[in-house]
């Protein structure tokens, strides 16, 4: 028995090592004094300083945040409305729309990116930050739906109807009764969408206009002309931010569930 549990632990450690060793390497190197990849020459924060001074990087950061915010907000609104409309459809239409919603999830990014680009060009829409945002909205919506829909199903129609019954207009019933119950699902959907947008390279690459860079496209560009440790610093920050967002999103949806469960247990 004892031996087995030791084996288990070793196995876990190896897995985690393989998963996180590359990122750890990158993080460590971002604090390296020198610029050579393989050799540790001392601790320093100067790549971080360089990074914040680099206009290209700051510009790309700004674009990334704007694109992620706008597409996350828009896709959260659209995805939530979609979830609210679903129960009103008959079951056939519902499965059709759900299947349509899943296609962008399953589709290869390269196909999504390429076809979006072709469509923009075919319709004479100049590639710009706007087209990137539109593209990101399309692939973010399914993630919002994934996290909001279970909440909508769990809630059902009765609370909404009870509010109407007590004299509330549909509007008031929605904001006072329905929305508070969906809040955690909507928020974690928003964080998912935000993360997916920050994370994306391929779709952005195909749909961005000339001179527009997000962090991922900029890093890719730099790799080709010779990589600088500022990029390690940048990647470290991106990783940490995404990591925190994912944890936050899990904690939020998990927390509302445990609060519910605990209250149930108390009664």
């Amino acid at each position: 028995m004892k031996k087995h549990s030791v084996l288990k632990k070793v196995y876990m450690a190896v897995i985690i090592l393989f998963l996180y060793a590359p990122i750890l390497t990158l993080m460590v190197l971002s604090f390296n004094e020198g610029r050579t990849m393989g050799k540790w020459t001392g601790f320093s924060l100067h790549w971080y300083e360089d990074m914040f001074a680099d206009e290209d990087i700051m510009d790309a950061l700004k674009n990334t945040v704007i694109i992620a915010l706008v597409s996350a907000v828009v896709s959260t609104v659209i995805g939530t409305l979609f979830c609210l409309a679903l129960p009103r459809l008959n079951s056939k239409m519902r499965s059709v729309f759900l299947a349509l919603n899943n296609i962008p999830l399953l589709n290869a990014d390269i196909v999504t990116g390429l076809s979006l680009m072709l469509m923009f060009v075919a319709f004479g829409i100049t590639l710009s930050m706007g087209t990137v945002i539109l593209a990101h909205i399309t692939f973010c919506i399914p993630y919002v739906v994934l996290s909001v829909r279970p909440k909508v199903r769990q809630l059902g129609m009765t609370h909404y109807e009870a509010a109407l019954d007590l004299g509330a207009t549909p509007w008031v019933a929605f904001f006072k009764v329905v929305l508070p119950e969906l809040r955690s699902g909507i928020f974690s959907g928003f964080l998912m969408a935000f993360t997916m947008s920050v994370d994306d390279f391929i779709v952005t690459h195909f749909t961005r206009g000339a001179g527009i860079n997000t962090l991922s496209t900029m890093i890719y560009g730099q790799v080709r002309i010779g990589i600088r440790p500022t990029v390690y610093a940048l990647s470290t920050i991106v990783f940490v931010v995404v990591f925190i967002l994912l944890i936050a999103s899990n904690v939020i949806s998990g927390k509302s569930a445990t609060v519910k469960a605990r209250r149930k247990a108390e009664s």
Partner: protein
Amino acid sequence: MSSTLVELEHISKSYGSKLIIDDLSLTIHENEFVTLLGPSGCGKTTTLRIIGGFEMPDSGRVLFEGRDITNTPPNHRNLNTVFQKYALFPNMTIAENIAFGLRISKKSKQYIDDKIKYALKLVNMEDFADRSVDSISGGQQQRVAIARAIVNEPKLLLLDEPLGALDLKLRQEMQYELIRLKNELGITFIYVTHDQEEALTMSDTVVVMNQGYIQQMGTPESIYNEPENAFVAAFIGDSNIIPGFMVQDKLVDILGVRFDCVDSGFGTNTPVDVVIRPEDVILGKPGEGRMDGRVTHIIFKGVHYEMEVMAGGFEWLVQSTVGHPVGEEVSISVDPFNIQIMNKPASEDEEAIKLDE
């Protein structure tokens, strides 16, 4: 009786190709306690939702105090609903739940506070104002749901199986509470249940439904004592439903034996269904009654014994405070007043309903 409050006029409703409510008409008077009673899936909830405004009938009209409200949205109807699953708002305290309707109608803070106190007292939950919905039991949630509805002083309260989730003892307590509340407040109740005992205990008027039809409507006594068809007889309490035929007025042939009865107007030699309640079957010594039989089953039920007696090829259900052991020869007789004659179901459809049971 007092004046009319709600009228359903020829209401029909289908989901897809499935007809749920079929040309249903019903009049409800002010201050009446009306119960819609029927097996699960017979359209009770749908009927209630049409009155509440959550469902549109395909045809027919709903009148409230003489006004057509068929197309009025729920928030503009002067009625409130206690939903089957209570539907309390989990993001609000008990007090906030109760205040919801009053805040919508912009009552003063003083008025709302008074009403919350009053309503909580009415349902015996004074100490629970600031508790969360999830921290109270099902029975308590149910009472809060009632309090939340009645503070708005509706003319009409709709209740959809409000006691369904409660255990037997609590359910009986709540039945008395509800009757007390109704008498105190003078509100008209439309109550939905599939529990015939509950319906008979609480109501002024019972509406027995099956497959979207009203099978019979009347006082609990008349429903119990004079069921109009086999479905009602079988659904309300236990009964012996025996095929027979009317020989002439006040004389019926049951299983080849003639019994005196009090019904007339069925014609001569007409096939009928005969309903005899198990407590109305009188057992005696062999040869002393109308027909002889043998006890095949007996169980003790507390207040009485329940026996099955094989007589004339029919298994009679009998309830009596005197038990007869299995195998004993007995005779059966029935007081003419306790023989209820019903017309045979008119259509195969109704026959099918009977078999369903």
